[in-house]
């Protein structure tokens, strides 16, 4: 199938036509024509390379009542993504070639985004001994990102070995930075609000201490480190320092940490319980600034679907995590573009180019240019809508943006030249 996309603003620039043929971008230019091509009117729409998420929980296998690879893939496509990294904390844990290949195959079958499995660093996420990282890397899933996300690889010697070992695989360890002894029973950011609400605090220092330790370890052994969901101003400072010293470290921030604060906890609605927790206004400003200046490399959703019963309960019993795939781009437009911190080229860099590079995805995060894979998202930046959790494609409803008006609308998504979203609707 051939598509002629008319009048799209590539990376927010002047309108141009894009010819998509055989899965690739065949031409970019003014007033293109092609016989037999299906014309897509993209007047006023911004074209970005398909978004890449380094941090998605698809819950399959194990919690198919909360999300499946298919429903999560649909949510991702509707959010403008063409590739998502599926986190390893499934049941069974993705700590063997068998499980990562299962997830990879389910993604292929769904066919809406490239589902790239993340492998567990340690067996069963238990933080005791390394999983067979090489077997996962060599499997059909070609795992390059390894993470015990949800759990910190807290043992410093084990973390050192993991960082060293994945060098041979061109891999990266994505660390969930949380000092476990400092966060026993932690429920929310430790500060004025946790003091008032009587919820056990999750101190910023518990995140920052691990990041500081890990950048030193990564430098010592000459390995690549990725830091998941950076949430504090102190973490941004440490990362900035590490990058100045030449440490090969990358980092991500979630949409919710760009927008929401610990004030959300005041009604005790567990939809706002997340790990790491929502922080203060000052932290939000710091992670925005870090994303803008490149200290934080990318936005990753930490899309974490949860069944109703795991959220409609006491705060302390609720599972941490919130949905993110379908509103990620809208939140980034709201917090970064409309504040003047990033232009659309910057959004493409932080949501596609850099995450693809970190995950070693060769077919994603590419320029919108002839010969490149036609992984594209077309969005209408002038649209505004109120988030209705019931209307989401995710199987779960735990959106922290319910009732909130956000800008932008994903109109079309193409995965290797095939529409996965057309006029805001998933094609399958």
């Amino acid at each position, binding site marked *: 199938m051939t598509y002629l996309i008319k009048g799209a603003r590539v990376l927010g620039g002047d309108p141009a036509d894009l010819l998509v043929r055989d899965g690739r971008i065949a031409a970019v230019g003014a007033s293109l024509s092609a016989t037999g091509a299906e014309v897509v009117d993209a007047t006023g729409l911004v074209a970005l390379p398909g978004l890449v998420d380094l941090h998605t929980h698809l819950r399959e296998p194990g919690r198919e009542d909360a999300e499946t690879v298919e429903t999560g893939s649909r949510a991702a496509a509707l959010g403008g993504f063409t590739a998502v990294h599926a986190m390893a904390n499934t049941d069974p844990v993705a700590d063997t070639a068998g499980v990562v290949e299962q997830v990879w195959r389910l993604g292929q079958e769904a066919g809406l985004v490239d589902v790239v499995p993340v492998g567990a660093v340690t067996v069963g996420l238990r933080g005791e001994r390394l999983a067979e990282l090489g077997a996962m890397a060599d499997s059909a899933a070609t795992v390059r990102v390894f993470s015990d996300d949800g759990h910190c690889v807290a043992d410093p010697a084990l973390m050192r070995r993991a960082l060293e070992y994945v060098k041979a695989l061109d891999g990266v360890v994505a660390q969930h930075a949380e000092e476990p002894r400092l966060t026993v029973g932690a*429920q929310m950011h*430790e*500060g*004025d*609000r*946790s*003091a*008032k*609400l*009587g*919820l*056990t*605090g999750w*101190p910023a220092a518990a995140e920052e201490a691990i990041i500081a330790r890990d950048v030193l370890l990564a430098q010592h052994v000459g390995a690549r480190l990725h830091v998941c969901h950076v949430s504090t101003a102190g973490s941004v400072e440490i990362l900035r320092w590490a990058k100045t010293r030449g440490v090969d470290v990358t980092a991500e921030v979630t949409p919710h940490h760009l927008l929401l604060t610990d004030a959300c906890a005041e*009604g*005790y*609605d567990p939809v706002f319980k997340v790990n790491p927790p929502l922080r203060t206004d000052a932290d939000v400003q710091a992670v925005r600034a870090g994303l803008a200046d490149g200290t934080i490399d990318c936005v990753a959703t930490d899309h974490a679907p949860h069944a109703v*019963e795991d959220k*409609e*309960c*006491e*705060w*302390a*019993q609720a599972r941490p995590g919130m949905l993110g795939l379908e509103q990620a781009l809208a939140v980034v437009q709201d917090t970064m573009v409309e504040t003047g911190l990033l232009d659309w080229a910057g959004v493409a860099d932080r949501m596609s180019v850099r995450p693809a590079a970190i995950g070693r995805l060769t077919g994603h995060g590419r320029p919108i240019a002839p010969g490149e894979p036609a992984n594209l998202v077309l969005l209408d930046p002038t649209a505004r809508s109120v988030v209705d959790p019931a209307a989401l494609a995710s199987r779960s409803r735990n959106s922290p943006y319910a009732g909130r008006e956000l800008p932008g609308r994903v109109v079309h998504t193409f995965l290797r030249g095939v529409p996965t979203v057309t006029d805001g609707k998933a094609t399958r």
Partner: protein
Amino acid sequence: MKRHLLEADDLDRADATLVLDTAAQIESALSGREVKKLPTLRGRTVVNLFYEDSTRTRISFELAAKRLSADVINFSAKGSSVSKGESLKDTALTLEAMGSDAIVIRHGASGAPHQLASWVRGSVVNAGDGTHEHPTQALLDAYTIRRRLGRLEGVRVAVVGDVLHSRVARSNVRLLHTLGAEVTLVAPPTLLPVGVGSWPAEVSYDLDAVLPKADVVMMLRVQAERMNASFFPSAREYSRRYGLDARRMAVLGDEAIVMHPGPMNRGMEIAAEVADSVRSTIVEQVGNGVSVRMAVLYLLLGGAPS
């Protein structure tokens, strides 16, 4: 008054004063009566929903409701559907379907009463939630102080002990501030929350420096197991630095009183001769609790059924 009593800040100064005045009226109305009952809440149903063991608070609420002629149902986590894994929301909706007008809830999770209030139409009274608040305890403490000292405005209250884990402290700081008292929190730094600086209270680590100026000393229960998590080195050291013994009691002003929400660890935070002294209001607090809880239920549920 708001429909629920979830935390001390639900009461402004006028509301809080109204509760205390109403408690005083109820007490005088019942004093000397042979039948200690008012017909005010006849036909109304109050559910005591207790997820934590708490004999004294549950009995106090039960007595309060019964003395107002309400029907009372006690629903404890043990021996109910809760132990079979029913969610708080399902339990709440079940109780409401059975016609409860008010739910008095004690729960180990901070915020559970707030969530309950979002699910039911009736009134919710927080009888203690996790390490958050225990507003009726603060009301009965304020009532006790006012009865003993005749006022609350400008009264200097030292709250001593495990502030970090104390719902009693959180509610008292807010309510006493609302009512014009001056609160000083006294504890080792490990037992004060990060963020305590934003509370309307002074903070001190030195009990001996605070006592001579205090009109009220409110001792909090300190659980010995905190010692195992290194909040303090030993029960003995805690007692030496923050316990109220006869020597420390001797520096108090003539009118000063000693309070404790109970249950006490005698010999830990409070010495027996202090607990049993004339300054102690500990038994009085228990009695006042019933009057204050009657006032709360009366004000939340009083009048015609809605």
